[in-house]
C-alpha cells in the first residue's frame, strides 16, 4: 500500500476507542489494466469537451451571419479537424463498447420461467441495434431518408 485514499473513506459515523490506520490504496492502482481503461474512459471527456466547444463556436458563427458561417464551415475541412473528428469517432465507439460491456448478463438466474439470453446473443442484439441506428442516422444525414 503506497497510495492513500481519502482519510475519511469508509470512516465509521462515530470514532471508536481503537486507533485505526488511515485507509489506503494500492500504490500501483493506476497500473492495473482495468484501471487504465477507466482512466482512458475518463480522458474521453476531454475529447467531448473540445467537440462541444467547436459546436458552440459554430453556433456562434452562425449567429454572426452567412459570411462567418461559411468561413467556419470551410475551417472544418482542415486536416487537423478531420483528425480530431476521427479521434471523436474512436472515443464514441470506445465509450459505447465499454458501456455495452456493462450490459452483458454476468449471472444466469437459476430460477424463473423467463430464459436469459446467452451473452453472445445479447451482444449481437446490442451491437445490431447500435449499427442499425448509426446506419439510419447516416442515411438521414446523407439525405437518402427524409
Amino acid at each position, binding site marked *: *500500500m503506497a497510495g492513500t485514499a*481519502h482519510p475519511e*473513506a*469508509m470512516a465509521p459515523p462515530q470514532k471508536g476507542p*481503537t486507533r485505526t490506520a488511515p485507509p489506503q490504496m*494500492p500504490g500501483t492502482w493506476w497500473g492495473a489494466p482495468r484501471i487504465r481503461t477507466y482512466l482512458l474512459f475518463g480522458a474521453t471527456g476531454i475529447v467531448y469537451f473540445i467537440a462541444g466547444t467547436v459546436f458552440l463556436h459554430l453556433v456562434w458563427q452562425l449567429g454572426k451571419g452567412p459570411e462567418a458561417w461559411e468561413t467556419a464551415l470551410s475551417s472544418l475541412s482542415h486536416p487537423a479537424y478531420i483528425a480530431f473528428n476521427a479521434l471523436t469517432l474512436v472515443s464514441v465507439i470506445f465509450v459505447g463498447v465499454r458501456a455495452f460491456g456493462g450490459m452483458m448478463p454476468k449471472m444466469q*438466474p437459476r*430460477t*424463473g420461467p423467463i430464459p436469459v439470453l446467452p451473452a453472445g446473443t445479447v451482444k449481437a442484439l446490442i451491437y445490431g441495434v447500435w449499427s442499425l441506428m448509426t446506419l439510419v442516422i447516416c442515411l438521414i444525414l446523407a439525405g437518402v431518408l427524409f
Partner: protein
Amino acid sequence: MTEAAEMMHVEVTRFDPDQDEVPKVQEYDIPIQSDWKVLDAINYIKDEVDSSLSHRWSCRMAVCGSCGMMVNGEPKLTCKTSLADYSGSIKIEPLANFPIVRDLVVDIDGFMDKFRQVKPWILRAKERAEDMEALNEKGTFSQSPAELGAFKQFSMCINCLLCYSACPVVANEPEFIGPAAIALGHRYNLDSRDEGARERNETFRGEGTVFSCSFANECSQVCPKNVDPAAAVNQAKLGAVIDWAKGLVLPREGA
C-alpha cells in the same frame, strides 16, 4: 496427504494500533502446498510462524465474506484465491479504502452505517400491513419464480466489501454509499413483496448515492459472486429518475 511442494515469500501488512504510527510490511518464507488457497498461507503463518497476526476468516467456502483482502494489489476473497495463481512471492494487505484496525483487519462500521441507509429489508406500506389478501394460506407472501428471478442475482451479495475496495469513488468520496449497499437496496426495490421503493429512491436521489457512481465498473470486475453491482447501481439510477418523474405528474398515494 500432499507434500510441501515449494516455498513462497509472503509479504503481509502489519499494524498494531498500540505501537505503530503507520502500517508496515513483514515478510515470511513459508512452505506451501499445491492445493492451498491464499487463506491457507495466512493461517499457516498465524498457526506456525507468528501467532500475533490478525485476520478475519470463517467459512472457507466463499459464503461468509469475511476473508476479503488485497492480494498483490487486487481485492480478493482469500479462501477462493489459489496460491497456484501466483509464483514465488505474494503480497497480502488489508482491504483498500477502509480504516485499518489491526494487521489485515479493517473497520467495517462505516459500511454498516451506509448499509442501513438503503433499508435493506422488506418494507410494507402501513395501510396495507394488515392486508391479509396478500398472504397465502400459510400466512406468507407468495412469489412466483419469475418474481424471484427479477432480484435473485442481487441477493447473492455476501457483503465481502471487495467492491468498496475496488471502487475509485469510494476511495475519494467519503459520502458515497457504495456498490454493495446500493445493490442490496435495489434488490429490495425489485422484490415483489416490497413497497419501499419510493422511500429508497429518495435516498438514491440524495447526495453521495447512485449518481456519484462514475461507471468505473470496478465493483463488478472484482465481485466474487458475480452479483454485478455496477448493473444494480445503473438500474437504480434509472429507477430513481423514473420515480422522480412520476412524482411530478402523478398524485402521491394517500395524499
